[in-house]
């Protein structure tokens, strides 16, 4: 199952929700659309499903142009953010809906519908709930019902809008793993929308990062973290400190903060031209050590243990910097010397 989107643009009044989006998925892939709210990811998903329409550009599914195909003929599974279960129908009837509305010739018999629905409910581990009404089950269970309902029509592509958005953290973690396994076992091709970078990086084969209606980078999680294409991607992924600076004389000079310059050779990414830049430095890319008053450039604000090290927050001339330090090395309020080992710089 492959999707190809080309030159997709969608405006709502004067604002462009999507600008010139190009995206291709491969069969069996799990793709995340990641971006802050208002970046257009849900609009893109809705256009794929036929629930919204592009002003220009094309959507092809399995090589077939979708512009004249209504939502009901696309055979795509769509899981809504709030699940949109039919409140007056039992769990069983919700899942059976897609089979019951088929034209008579393609509609399976009652026994076959029952068999298929029950198999799906079993697969979703909610077999015992078939007679319950949607309001009588928990959020996580509703999510599974919504998934089962979408899968009942044997969709060519599964689209999920913020699939874990309405769930609490504990349920979310469990369901994430389960959804990943389900995707693999059933050989689905799925596209899901999220604003949670951890969710995207953990689940997806490839992540498409969206910013203000544009698709700024689509890559594997590893590539995305290692080689962000723009300052936005670098800032959005991986909890990096963002500091203004200047590239000049073969080094990165920080502006407004007492940090020593970093030579170009130490930078993981930098524009070829000298000039003003935005530098991103992740927590593990700092070196922190206690220092006497004269050499210190930062103060420890707080720390908490995280795995084998301490996660520390330092005050660097008014900027809050997150870094890692050996456990027990620092005390709160202690003057420290903070030095970046590397950075990613993007032209500002």
């Amino acid at each position: 199952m492959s999707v190809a989107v080309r030159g997709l643009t969608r405006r709502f009044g004067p604002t462009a929700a999507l600008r010139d989006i190009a995206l291709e998925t491969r069969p069996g892939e799990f793709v995340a659309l990641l971006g802050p709210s208002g970046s257009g990811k849900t609009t893109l998903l809705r256009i794929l499903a036929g629930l919204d329409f592009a002003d220009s550009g094309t959507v092809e599914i399995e090589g077939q142009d979708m512009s004249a195909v209504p939502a009901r003929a696309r055979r795509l599974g769509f899981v809504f953010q709030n699940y949109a279960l039919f409140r007056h129908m039992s769990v069983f009837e919700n899942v059976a809906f897609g089979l019951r509305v088929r034209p008579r010739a393609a509609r399976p018999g009652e026994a076959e519908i029952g068999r298929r629905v029950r198999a799906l409910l079993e697969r979703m581990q909610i077999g015992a709930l078939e007679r319950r009404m949607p309001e009588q089950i928990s959020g996580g269970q509703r999510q599974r019902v919504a998934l089962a309902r979408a899968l009942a029509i044997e969709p060519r592509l599964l689209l999920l809008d913020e699939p874990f958005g309405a769930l609490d953290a504990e349920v979310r973690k469990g369901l994430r793993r389960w959804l990943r396994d389900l995707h693999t076992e059933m050989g689905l091709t799925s596209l899901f929308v999220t604003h949670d970078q951890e969710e995207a990086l953990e689940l997806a084969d490839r992540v498409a990062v969206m910013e203000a209606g544009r698709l700024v980078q689509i890559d594997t999680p590893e590539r995305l973290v290692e080689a962000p294409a723009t300052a936005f991607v670098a800032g959005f992924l991986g909890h990096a400190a963002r500091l203004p600076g200047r590239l000049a004389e073969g080094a990165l000079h920080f502006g407004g903060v007492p940090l020593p310059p970093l030579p170009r050779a130490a930078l993981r990414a930098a524009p070829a031209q000298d000039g003003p830049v935005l530098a991103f430095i992740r927590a593990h890319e700092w070196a922190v050590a206690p220092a006497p008053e004269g050499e210190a450039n930062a103060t420890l604000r707080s720390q908490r243990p995280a795995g084998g090290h301490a996660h520390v927050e330092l005050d660097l001339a008014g900027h809050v910097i997150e870094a890692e330090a050996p456990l027990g090395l620092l005390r709160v309020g202690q003057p420290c010397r903070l030095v970046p080992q590397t950075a990613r710089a993007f032209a500002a």
Partner: protein
Amino acid sequence: MTPRRRDPLPGFGLSLGVTLLWLLGLVLIPLLALLLRPLELGPAGFWHSVTEPRVLAALRLSFLGALAAAAATVPPGLLVAWVLVRYRFPGRRLLDGMVDLPFALPTAVAGLALTALYAPNGWLGAPLAALGLKVAYTPLGVVLAMAFVGLPFIVRTVEPVLRDLPREAEEAAATLGASRAQTLWRVVLPALAPALLAGFAMAAARAIGEYGSVIFIAGNMPMVSEIAPLLIVVRLEQFDYAGAAAVGVAMLALSFLLLLALNLVQRLWRRA
């Protein structure tokens, strides 16, 4: 002595007392008076009074007419609610306000207007008469007037439910392969059914008691187009107070049974 339990919502005693007093004065005592009055006739006299052919015909017209009118109001009421909720167009607020006109208009004015319109020489009455359809001064006219006053009930009960109906449910139905008609029939209408039934019950109840807007267009021919409330007035004018109250009691009992039945249907629906 046990310590008094503290209530998180104080004022229960006072509010219940006021409510009961209010109900007593406005509803219970008048109803009791209505029930007591026909006792003067004795059981046989009461039975005779309410089973007169003219009374039975009037009761039949009032109740069947009201049910027919309420049923006939459901589709247009639903449509008006749908248009008001789902579309934005110039004049929407005007239409929204007009829906309540049957509430606000003095019923006699409505009755006169309908009569003028549907009389055999009226704007609509004349062409309909040419087609062989007589509206004014027939049971059809009675139902028409009842439907007129019932419309706002359907619209106003369905509207909030329709507004709260998530669009996603319809979109979900579409992605699952349902046609627009299937979506309306299987997703939208069932969600609206309880509201429609509630609106139907209110419209029917209002139509049963409707007097002013009906009597002008009805023509009030005994056995044909005479409604029960009019019969009560007729008996009052003949100083037959007990007889008038007897018809009132019969209406009360039938209305009560009707609302009970509709309530039962609603409860069954909720369980299904």
